[in-house]
């Protein structure tokens, strides 16, 4: 027999160290079956389903399946409560959020045990990571509520926010959603994942103790149909964290509805190890990257990319480390890897891994209990083209490949549909800081992994979604401009007679890749000025012109890497050259629009160019105050290629107002000119040609907005689509954007002469990338 002091003195084994569950189980027993939390009260349970402990399969509680009626009641409660909540002072809201933070700490043990019971994650993670980060998030946003009036005077709450969260960090994702929403004066209807509702229901209990006014927080439990009901309900915003497929579905379901949307979706995050890295630390980092929370982490470092010369050593040490991992009862305080959340998900992991036939598989030589467990697994020798290098497994399975040079590392890392997070390991500051900005990811950790904090933005690029959570940038997801948006005005083109104008025939062309180009389809429409005189033939762009323009824009990568000072110089020069032709443009505008303020429009356009030329080197990132020794730098990076539909009114100024902030931040643009008066945009191309604007940075198309919108919005190599068009493009753009989860901005109308200078444009033109650089000599 083993187990005496004398025997253990020899074996030096770890024994069981279970966390007690009595209090948590008693808390559940007193409340199951659970209803929903609506308008400050728990409803009586409706149709229920079981929520189980994945480690044992035992039922923990009965949870109500929320139906349309429950969702409707919750949304009504949230709607009714919202004005009063928003009308409270920031300080009053701060006091409530502060109470929530304190209460999370006071009930830390209960919450941690509930989380581990329901989700299967090791108690160490619930206790040391999830719950402390939840408290931190409420503290941080208590501060944001306090500061909103003074620091965000131009922002207003969105209203009622529908929030749908995943099962991998049940309470932490709730905190990420609820804290900023409440801080900014919104009310919420939140649905936890059906596998992990318990901590959200415990949070409802905590809301009562914190004095959250009835209706401000509503929690409706249920499966995907409940989520769909929230998406379809009369809410002002949907915030979703979960799978890319569901995110795409929500994008389509909300297209054209005017509902704000943020999506935090899947990932296949690269973990790059250079040969000069601290190898043992990089190996240990992988434990936190892919074997954290059983690998069920959207930003898990799941794609190991290691420099060829050290690969053999690295893999050997990694396998050794894997073999020492302890997998088992998640309530044990000396367990590294707990249970997979649900047998259904376990089957999915098996199916994905079993489908991979190449590569060398190492399954950790640790004792794996029967039940819902998956052993730590490493598959080396894969190529970027292999399915498992591309598909998110969402389990404790690491796939690996090698690289030779920094640029190859970057290429392999970016060879993915996703763009959530990345890790770079190198002791060379030059290597690390060179690679970090080149990785397509919303978060980059240098010599670290899975670091999170309320003060730092978190969120993805590409099909990992859009929007940030945390930091100042995270507040944008829960506020709107305090000036209500107006619909974009519709201006019809003038009709006229088709007699030839005076002078030599002029042929306006599309402007693509720095050259004037005839439209691919060989078609034009006639354009008339305000007096009905034929002003010219407007080329009609088609899908192929879009393709060519986007290709040209993609090639102009030098613009993004040019110095901000350099970009500013070019933009001032555009202004100078436009100014030189001001009278000509003003006269043209007056003739074409039938107004008499062409001069004002040109003046404003020159000024706008100066404004954004000024911003080129002044829209600084920031250093987030995260609790590490090191820097967490929020960089403002260009999105890439931005497509923009210009407003009907203000043919020149509208175009300049879209172009200037975009190119100032280093983007390249494909702009579709004003529907009613497109000619000045093509003439403006001549100004660009004489202003040292590199070919491809600005591309100008003319044609039918509604016809061009689907192809532009669904183009997979476009990072963002903006529309200020008078045509109602919201639905078609947002539907088209669902494929690659392109960022969209339906901008509405504004007085372009006075407006169009606000920070919203700069923020729309940039992605916030947070680069964590812990240091220490």
């Amino acid at each position, binding site marked *: 027999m083993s187990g005496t002091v004398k025997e253990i003195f020899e074996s*030096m084994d770890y024994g069981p160290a279970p966390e007690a569950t009595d209090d948590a189980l008693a808390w559940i027993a007193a409340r199951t079956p659970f209803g929903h939390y609506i308008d400050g009260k728990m409803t009586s349970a409706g149709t229920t389903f079981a929520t189980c402990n994945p480690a044992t399969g035992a039922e923990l509680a009965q949870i109500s399946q929320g139906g349309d009626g429950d969702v409707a009641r919750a949304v009504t409660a949230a709607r009714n409560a919202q004005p009063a909540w928003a009308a409270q002072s920031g300080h009053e809201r701060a006091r409530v959020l502060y109470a929530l933070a304190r209460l999370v700490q006071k009930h830390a043990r209960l919450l941690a045990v509930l989380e581990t019971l329901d989700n299967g994650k090791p108690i160490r993670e619930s206790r040391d990571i999830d719950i402390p980060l939840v408290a931190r998030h409420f503290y941080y946003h208590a501060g944001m509520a306090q500061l909103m009036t003074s620091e965000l005077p131009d922002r207003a709450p969105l209203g009622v926010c529908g929030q749908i969260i995943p099962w991998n960090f049940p309470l932490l994702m709730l905190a990420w959603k609820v804290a900023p929403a409440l801080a900014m004066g919104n009310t919420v209807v939140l649905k936890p994942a059906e596998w992990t509702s318990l901590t959200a229901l415990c949070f409802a209990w905590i809301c009562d103790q914190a004095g959250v006014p009835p209706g401000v927080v509503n929690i409706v439990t249920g499966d995907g149909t409940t989520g769909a009901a929230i998406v379809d309900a009369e809410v002002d915003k949907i915030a979703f964290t979960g799978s890319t497929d569901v995110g795409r579905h929500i994008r389509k379901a909300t297209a054209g509805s005017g509902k704000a949307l943020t999506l935090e979706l899947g990932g296949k995050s690269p973990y790059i190890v250079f040969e000069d*890295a*601290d*190898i043992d630390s990089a190996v240990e980092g992988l434990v936190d990257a892919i074997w954290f929370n059983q690998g069920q982490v959207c930003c898990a470092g799941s794609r190991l990319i290691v420099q060829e010369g050290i690969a053999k050593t690295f893999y050997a040490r990694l396998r050794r480390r894997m073999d020492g991992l302890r997998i088992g009862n998640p309530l044990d305080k000396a367990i590294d890897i707990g249970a997979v959340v649900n047998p259904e998900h376990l089957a999915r992991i098996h199916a994905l891994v079993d489908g991979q036939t190449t590569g060398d598989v190492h399954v950790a030589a640790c004792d794996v209990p029967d039940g819902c467990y998956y052993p730590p697994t490493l598959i080396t020798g894969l190529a970027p083209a292999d399915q498992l290098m591309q598909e998110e497994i969402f389990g404790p399975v690491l796939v690996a490949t090698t690289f030779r040079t920094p640029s190859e590392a970057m290429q392999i890392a970016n060879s993915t549909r996703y763009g959530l997070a990345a890790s770079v390991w190198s002791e060379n500051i030059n290597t690390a800081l060179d690679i970090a900005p080149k990785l397509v990811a919303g978060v980059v950790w240098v010599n670290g992994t899975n670091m999170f904090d309320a003060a730092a933005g978190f969120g993805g690029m590409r099909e990992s979604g859009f929007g940030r959570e945390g930091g100042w940038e995270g507040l944008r997801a829960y506020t709107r401009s305090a000036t209500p948006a107006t619909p974009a005005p519709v201006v019809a083109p003038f009709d006229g007679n088709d007699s030839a104008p005076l002078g030599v025939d002029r042929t306006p062309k599309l402007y693509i890749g720095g050259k004037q180009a005839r439209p691919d389809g060989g078609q034009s429409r006639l354009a008339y000025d305000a007096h009905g005189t034929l002003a010219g033939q407007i080329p009609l762009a088609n899908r192929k012109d879009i393709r060519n323009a986007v290709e040209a824009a993609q090639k102009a990568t030098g613009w993004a890497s040019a110095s901000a000072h350099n970009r500013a110089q070019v933009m001032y020069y555009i202004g100078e050259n436009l100014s030189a032709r001001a009278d000509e443009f003003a006269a043209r505008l007056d003739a074409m629009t039938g107004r008499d303020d062409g001069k004002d429009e040109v003046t404003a356009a020159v000024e706008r160019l100066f404004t954004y030329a000024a911003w080129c080197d002044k829209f600084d990132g920031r250093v987030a105050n995260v609790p590490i020794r090191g820097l967490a730098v929020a960089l403002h990076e260009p999105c890439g290629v931005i497509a923009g539909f210009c407003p009907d009114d203000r043919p020149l100024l509208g175009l300049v107002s879209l172009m200037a902030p975009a190119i100032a931040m280093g983007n390249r643009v494909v702009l579709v000119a004003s529907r009613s008066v497109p000619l000045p945009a093509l003439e403006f191309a001549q100004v660009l040609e004489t202003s040292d604007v590199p070919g491809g940075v600005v591309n100008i198309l003319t044609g039918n907005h509604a016809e061009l919108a689907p192809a532009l919005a669904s183009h997979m190599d476009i990072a963002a689509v903006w529309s200020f068009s008078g045509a109602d493009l919201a639905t078609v753009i947002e539907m088209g954007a669902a494929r690659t989860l392109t960022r969209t901005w339906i901008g509405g109308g504004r007085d372009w002469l006075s407006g169009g200078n606000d920070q919203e444009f700069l923020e729309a033109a940039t992605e916030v990338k947070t680069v964590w650089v812990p240091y220490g000599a």
Partner: protein
Amino acid sequence: MTAHTQDATATTTAHLPQTVEPRNPGQGLDMDWVMRTQANRSAIERRAVTLPGRRSVKKTYQAAWLARAISCIDLTTLAGDDTDGRVRRLCAKGRAPVRPDLLRALDLPDLTVGAICVYHDMIAPAVSALQGSGIPVAAVSTGFPAGLSPFHLRIAEIEQSVKAGASEIDIVISRRHVLTRNWQALFEEMRAFRAACGTAHVKAILATGELGTLQDVGRASLVCMMAGADFIKTSTGKEPINATLPVTLVMIRAIREYYEATGYRVGYKPAGGISKAKDALVYLSMIKDELGDRWLRPDLFRFGASSLLGDIERQLEHHVTGAYSAAWRHGIG
């Protein structure tokens, strides 16, 4: 002395290093290897700070682990006012580190500490007091703690101590060789110390608190092992910063790498600042997880400590009785 300590010899010789593991003979100085060594402080500190939360040893296991910790203690006195009597008292504690009734309850009646560690002049009384116990005497040497006496005297000090009966010699390296990157000089110094030790085992004290960076700790560890160190040890106990978990991680990772490359197991001794039973458990977990169970034996692991034993005694009495203990219930060393 009680009866059980007299018949302890047979079982306790197993912790004498020379009886179990082939000694590390050393090798040439491989500068490529030395310079490849990297140590990322932030990542190492993260590992160190999260380890106590990842490993928890409770109840019977905790008692057994604490007994194991005792077996690995180099019970130490290194004070200017040491006398024969003081050293004899310490040796008596080393032979009977825990009250006999408690040891009987744990069914470990023969438990002793790993070694008694003293200055050169105290070797004789220690050897005499430990007669028949099988507990080795370790002597600090080479101008401990600064290591700045004339080189020939440092060599002579080792030889004298070995002659006086010390079977383990704790030498101090010349920190200046590390700080000025004179790795060759460090290697040769260590080689000479090792040679002077003869059959006695040599522990190389790096004085990590004076080396400045974890990377240098890692590199110095490797150089000393290449030159034939049997143990590498953190500190003299006299530096402002002594044993820490991050330093431990760097040194034991170097030991692991050396073992993987050469097949020789080098021992590890953290010294100074480890005074709580709980800390000892964390150290043992770190050794177990990073190096493996083989290192959890006194021939490959020692705590350099003077007050740790007292805290462990109280925890063991708590384990046996279920009630928290008091220091005065345990005989002092």
